[in-house]
């Protein structure tokens, strides 16, 4: 039984926390310790709400995962991101949310007999996808490879001479949009997933930047934003998608998304349109009449690192 304290002033406090009025004993000491631990745990649980960094708005902090957002939520989020782009970059952008086209499965093929390593695809990617101009980032790496080897680890990305060299071939590598994507499996927060049209996307606002996916990807296709991207206002591509080419925050992962803000509208990816050799072919793998299906049926085709079982939607082929 509790013994009421004689001090009337503290009576109200005791009503609230009756443990204060109890005589000191081992039991009350343990009770007190338990209550203190409980308070500490509660404080720890709500601490993130209090310690929101200054450059993160409350809306941004409380933003839900992309898949949990209702259409009203999305509208609010997109408006906020558009305002942020205006504030940080001085550019009027439109952020859209293209959904997968039902029944479409995207595939991409590169003709290695045609590719000459000129790197226009990387340039187009950088411009289209609002990459950090400080490092001229791109989702594509064009590897210069010794003829006779398919070992991508021996490829060289830093060649700087007239192309093509006679003893070399050139292999652009970007996200292979695997059907069995290791990067998705390792993500601890489900910030990256595979959409119905085969594109593996990232919710840049949900990503915690742990870079597990970068380590898991056998194609070195994922990029980390070490810095807040720097893009001159006139170079910002205003046609942006939430899951694709909007300006990514610092500390998040990003990757090729087959330009989904374009391809889900039926347009070609930017790297394909930029290719001067016509080495790139894009299309719907579910459409038996599409160009890409003809190539898969009639050309010598291989997929990169097939032995890993990642099942890419990205193919390489030769003319003869």
């Amino acid at each position, binding site marked *: 039984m509790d013994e009421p304290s004689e001090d009337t002033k503290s009576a109200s406090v005791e009503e609230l926390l009756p443990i204060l009025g109890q005589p000191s004993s081992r039991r009350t000491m343990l009770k007190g310790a338990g209550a203190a631990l409980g308070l500490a745990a509660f404080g720890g649980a709500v601490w993130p709400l209090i310690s929101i960094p200054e450059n993160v708005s409350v809306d941004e902090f409380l933003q839900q995962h992309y898949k949990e957002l*209702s*259409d*009203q939520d999305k509208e609010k989020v997109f408006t906020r991101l558009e305002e942020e782009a205006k504030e940080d970059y001085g550019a009027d952008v439109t952020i859209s949310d293209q*959904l*997968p*086209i*039902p*029944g479409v499965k995207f595939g991409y093929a590169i*003709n290695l007999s*045609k590719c*000459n390593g*000129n*790197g*226009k695809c*990387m*340039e187009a990617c*950088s411009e289209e996808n609002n990459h*950090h*101009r*400080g*490092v*001229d*980032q*791109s989702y594509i*790496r064009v590897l210069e490879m010794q003829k006779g080897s398919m070992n991508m680890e021996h490829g060289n*990305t*830093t*060649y*700087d*001479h*007239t*192309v*093509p060299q006679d003893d070399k071939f050139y292999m652009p590598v970007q996200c292979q949009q695997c059907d069995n994507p290791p990067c998705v499996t390792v993500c601890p927060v489900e910030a990256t997933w595979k959409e*119905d049209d085969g594109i593996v996307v990232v919710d840049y606002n949900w990503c915690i930047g742990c870079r597990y996916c970068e380590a898991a990807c056998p194609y070195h296709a994922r990029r980390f934003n*070490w*810095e807040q991207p*720097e893009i001159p206002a006139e170079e910002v591509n205003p046609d942006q998608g939430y899951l694709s080419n909007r300006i990514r925050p610092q500390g998040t992962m990003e990757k090729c998304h087959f330009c989904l803000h374009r*391809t889900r*509208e*039926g*347009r*070609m990816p930017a790297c394909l349109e930029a*290719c*001067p*050799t*016509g080495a790139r*072919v*894009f*299309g*719907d793998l*579910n459409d038996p009449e*599409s*160009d*890409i299906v*003809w*190539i898969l049926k*009639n050309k010598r085709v291989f997929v990169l690192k097939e032995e890993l079982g990642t099942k890419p939607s990205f193919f390489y*082929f030769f*003319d*003869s």
Partner: protein
Amino acid sequence: MCVKKVAMCHFAHFKYLLTALQFTRSHKLNFEIRGTLFANVCSSTVTLIIANGNFTNMRIQVMKSLIQSIGPNTLGILVLFLLFLGSILLVAASFAGETAVSQENGEQSRSIVESKPASPASTNYPILINRPSGPPRVDTGMEDPHGNSITVACSTCHTTRKPNITNRKASDLDEFHQKMPMSHGNLSCVSCHNPEDYDSLKLADGSRVEFTQVMKLCAQCHGPQTRDYRHGAHGGMNGYWDLSKGPRTRNNCVDCHKPHAPQFPKMRPTFKPRDRFLNPVKSHEK
């Protein structure tokens, strides 16, 4: 009752259904559930028919869950059935003398039913192939009083001269065209040029072909390339992969290959990502 919306969802996404039911209750709307209508195609699909409500948002959520939960083939069937069911209900509703169904606002554009083309074959955009504008004009090296260079048609000179069909190289010529690079197999000038009318070309069988139809000429020898071109595996393109959404523009042979020296030119890479392990980062220099 006036039927406003017909929506379906997968039982796995039960919370969307519950949201819908709560909404209908709170707005005192009539609703009914038709469970497991499509037991054969999709084992646990529910059809929800809701009356007189603004259900745009709910429907989109439900539709999204529908796409996630079922395959594309069954979706087609479901969409057809949905339209069928909707039309029947609409007819029944109007027959009962109710007021007409009001139209929805613009948010509907995200609806799955509308984004799927009804008949792709009939609405396809064309594939446009670039074409040379006509016979080329040759620069004479002279300028008119306004400073514009004077160009002439091929026939200006060639109608007055007898062709020498043994000429193979530009350097064989007595005058004009002498510095033109010519490395196209073993071809001679008149393999492609028409000695009877230099404003046109000729096929191997001697028949005339216009400059605008040059691909027909190239295709005589370059069969594999032509086959690949027809299937999109050769030659660059721009525009739309999905011809139901927009047109596609394709290159002509001579857009990329010079007819007299057709090998694709060597290039110099102009763009290199400056990897932080290899080069200093530009932003730090600023």
